[in-house]
């Protein structure tokens, strides 16, 4: 019997101890009329047989050369990361409720929180949320609880923020009557200009969301945006890529004015680039960090360092009075567990890379994307869309609909980018492309060659 250790002898002795004749008798309290008939699901198979099926299905999906980013990024994952994360002691443990028997997980989360504080320049981090998009939704709910100066529940959501994140924030936070106001971007620069915020000056607004780099890969003028928000008593929610923070000013330091608070108030984002595979969209993890003064409004688990009965340091879950199992309907969120295993991977990843390695990854990704955008822009009918400086993504404009071009590339084993036609029809035939450190010069050449071939077949033939 699959994964069930009971021998016939065990079963009869156990039934005897209980005082029933059969296992079926144990279900006597379920009303007879409700009992299920035979399930219409396939019969069980052995590991060998299923292994073959799974390998066939995986092989069919292939291993394309990928230039899509848009919130999920392909980076090198060091071998130790998953070799250790899949150790049974991490993989098959649960939330560290029994702190004394979970010091490994707890210390690791404390180290993770410390690393996220270092990267973001913030004072406190939680133990993770589900993913970047839902972390933004939680950040919006947290901002409403935190910003007592505002009563409107209005949040400014620039259109340069990942549009799926905006959808998720609406789906989750919208149930609590939070209104999101779209703020337009500069069509030539590809970032959010201060002028598009000016109409909201002096109004009752809860928060401004700033994504850095933004969805187009462009760098926002984060100091200006942060100062403007704080002058208007608006909280700043930063959405950041953790790898980019090796090069970019951390959100805890955004802003230049000395008469208002420095730094973003809530920082969140997608943790996937830190050692988590693309895996068709998940599991990833969301991160969140904030100022110490707001820690009691932060959702999710938090680990603290304390002392044991002998006065020696140890770790435990803390500030649990914020959480659903204590506060029930008054909790900061209904979130219960987080994405512990992904955090394990990320903490190992950050330890192996360190500041020097992470900076190298970020710098190489920056250069590769510049090379990619330059190479592809040399193909007739392709040009860069925006002038703002960027990190590791770029929007390119084609002279024809992108979908058939991307489909032709996919037939050659190249995922050439994300078609923006549905998300940003006003941009025309736009695609979003990405190159990380995993893309070598030869990969970029293959893409550029294939694109030239597809877009200008006669020229390529000549």
């Amino acid at each position, binding site marked *: 019997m699959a994964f069930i250790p009971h021998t016939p002898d065990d079963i009869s002795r156990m039934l005897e101890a209980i005082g029933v004749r059969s296992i079926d008798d144990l279900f006597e309290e379920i009303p007879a009329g409700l009992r299920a008939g035979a399930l219409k699901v396939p019969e069980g198979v052995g590991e060998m047989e299923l292994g073959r099926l799974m390998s066939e299905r995986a092989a069919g999906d292939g291993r394309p050369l990928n230039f899509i980013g848009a919130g999920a990024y392909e980076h090198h994952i*060091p071998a130790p990361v998953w070799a250790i994360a899949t150790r049974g002691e991490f993989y098959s443990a649960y939330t560290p409720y029994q702190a004394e028997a979970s010091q490994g997980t707890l210390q690791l989360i404390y180290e993770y929180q410390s690393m996220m504080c270092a990267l973001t320049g913030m004072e406190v981090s939680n133990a993770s949320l589900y993913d970047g998009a839902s972390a933004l939704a939680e950040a919006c709910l947290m901002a409403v609880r935190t910003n007592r100066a505002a009563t409107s529940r209005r949040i400014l959501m620039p259109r340069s923020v990942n549009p799926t994140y905006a959808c998720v924030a609406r789906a989750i936070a919208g149930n609590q009557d939070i209104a999101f106001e779209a703020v337009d971007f500069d069509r030539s620069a590809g970032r959010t200009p201060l002028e598009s915020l000016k109409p909201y000056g002096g109004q009752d607004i809860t928060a401004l969301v700033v994504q850095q780099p933004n969805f187009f890969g462009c760098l926002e003028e984060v100091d200006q945006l942060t100062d403007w928000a704080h002058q208007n008593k608006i909280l700043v929610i930063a959405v950041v890529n953790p790898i980019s923070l090796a090069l970019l000013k951390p959100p805890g330091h955004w802003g230049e004015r000395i008469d208002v608070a420095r730094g973003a108030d809530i920082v969140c984002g997608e943790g996937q680039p830190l050692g988590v595979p693309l895996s068709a969209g998940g599991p990833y993890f969301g991160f969140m960090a904030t100022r110490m003064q707001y820690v009691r409004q932060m959702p999710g688990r938090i680990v603290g360092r304390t002392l044991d009965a002998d006065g020696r340091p140890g770790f435990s879950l803390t500030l649990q009075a914020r959480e659903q199992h204590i506060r029930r309907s008054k909790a900061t969120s209904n979130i219960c567990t987080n994405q512990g295993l992904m955090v394990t991977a990320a903490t190992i990843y950050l330890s192996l890379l360190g500041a020097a390695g992470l900076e190298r990854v970020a710098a190489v990704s920056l250069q590769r994307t510049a090379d990619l955008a330059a190479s592809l822009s040399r193909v007739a009918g392709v040009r860069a869309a925006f002038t703002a400086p960027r990190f590791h993504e770029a929007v390119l404009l084609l002279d024809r609909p992108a979908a058939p071009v991307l489909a032709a590339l996919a037939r050659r084993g190249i995922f050439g980018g994300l078609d923006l036609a549905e998300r940003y029809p006003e941009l025309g035939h736009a695609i979003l492309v990405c190159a990380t450190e995993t893309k070598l010069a030869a990969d970029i050449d293959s893409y550029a060659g294939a694109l030239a071939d597809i877009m200008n077949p006669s020229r390529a033939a000549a």
Partner: protein
Amino acid sequence: MTDLQLREPLIFELSRPGRQASTQFPPPAFGSAEIPAHLRRAAPPALPAVSELQAVRHFTRLSQMNFSIDTHFYPLGSCTMKYNPKACNAFAMLPEFLGRHPLGPEPQGFLACMYELQEMLQEITGMQAVSLTPMAGAQGEFAGVAMIRAYHRSRNDGGRNEIIVPQAAHGTNPATAAMCGCSVKEIPCDENGDVDIDSLKAAVGPATAGIMLTNPSTLGVFERKITEVARIVHEAGGLLYYDGANLNAILGKVRPGDMGFDVIHMNLHKTFSTPHGGGGPGSGAVGVGARLLPFLPIPMVGKDGARFRWLTERDLPHSIGRLSGFMGNAGVNLRAYIYMRLLGREGMVRVAEFATLNANYLMKRLEAAGFEAAYPSRRASHEFIITLKRENRLYQITAMDVAKRLLDYGFHAPTTYFPLLVPECLLIEPTETEAKEDLDRFCDALIAIRREMEQEPEKLSSAPHTMPVRRLDDVRAAKQLDLAWKPAA
């Protein structure tokens, strides 16, 4: 258990400037791409600088400071800590699955697995359709209540904003209702653990959006009046939400759809054995009956002829929307699919049978040894509650003391102080994958601890004695917040 008496410095304390795991660095790229000075970071982040071996040894040693299913019996009630088959991880980590970008062309092999998973979950729950998008049980709950709200609004009945939950409900139920903008009405259970029908009748009305129920309940017993509960709530115009926390108890025996539930979430990390990972990632797939079909969260997997594809806003314009940046916890769902295929039809029915056999056996043995079951007249489901209120009176011993002492005996503690309405309780869920001799050893440990209560109670009140740390000062943790390591100034 002296092997657990490890101490391990913080990784930051192992760090030395200039040390690197440079094999993991990409070669430098040559070019002129640069970040403008005013957007650049001024000083590098304070991350550790360690060698590859130091990192490997550090995290391996940390892992050894954990109890886990692979190393210990872990009868944590309401969490279903069963064996996580290694094949589920191995096949889900095939390089083609891991390398797949979520926004590329639709991967037919992966989607075939997801489509079949939807179909299997639909069949075993008796629902009309399933969405795999929610990323955890709590998000599945959120999706369920949001769908109930959307349903009432679509009928211009938007005033229905009260969610009824039994007092014994898990804390996520009321927290979820509040997140969906609903108010919460709690109703009591009777002395046998069933919902108090008179209180339910008094609670329902024109403001009732629905009721959230776990069955078997968090009291570890099957809700026998479920058909009557369903009738009362439906007649009042409300819908029934099934919290799938305890689905392991009834797999293949009774289907939530047949009990009258309109919506269900499943914890794939419990019933379908995906790893708990030290607290996630989970997966909280939702299933619905006919009334809620239009509102399911996206994306889902559909099939056009032989081709699988994502169903999006276009296919489901009334959907409550997207709950994740991409496709939910896709890799977790893949592990659940592999588990279900390994078990198959008979294997799934055996899950409920042997989980129930193990729980009832353990309960009878503990009762025979003098422990008090909270609901002695009832059959245990897949779990049961022991109350230590008598021991507490006689020896001033708490459930927490017993939990901590069990660690010294090499067992993870059961869930303590939940459900809140049973004093000094242990909620014990052995699961179907434990052998009789492991249950017996656990029982023997509790009997030995009981003897210690009489003879050496200080052994309990000061437990644990063999873990890497002694009992921790939680008050200090919350008052003198130390939430991150900081480099010396």
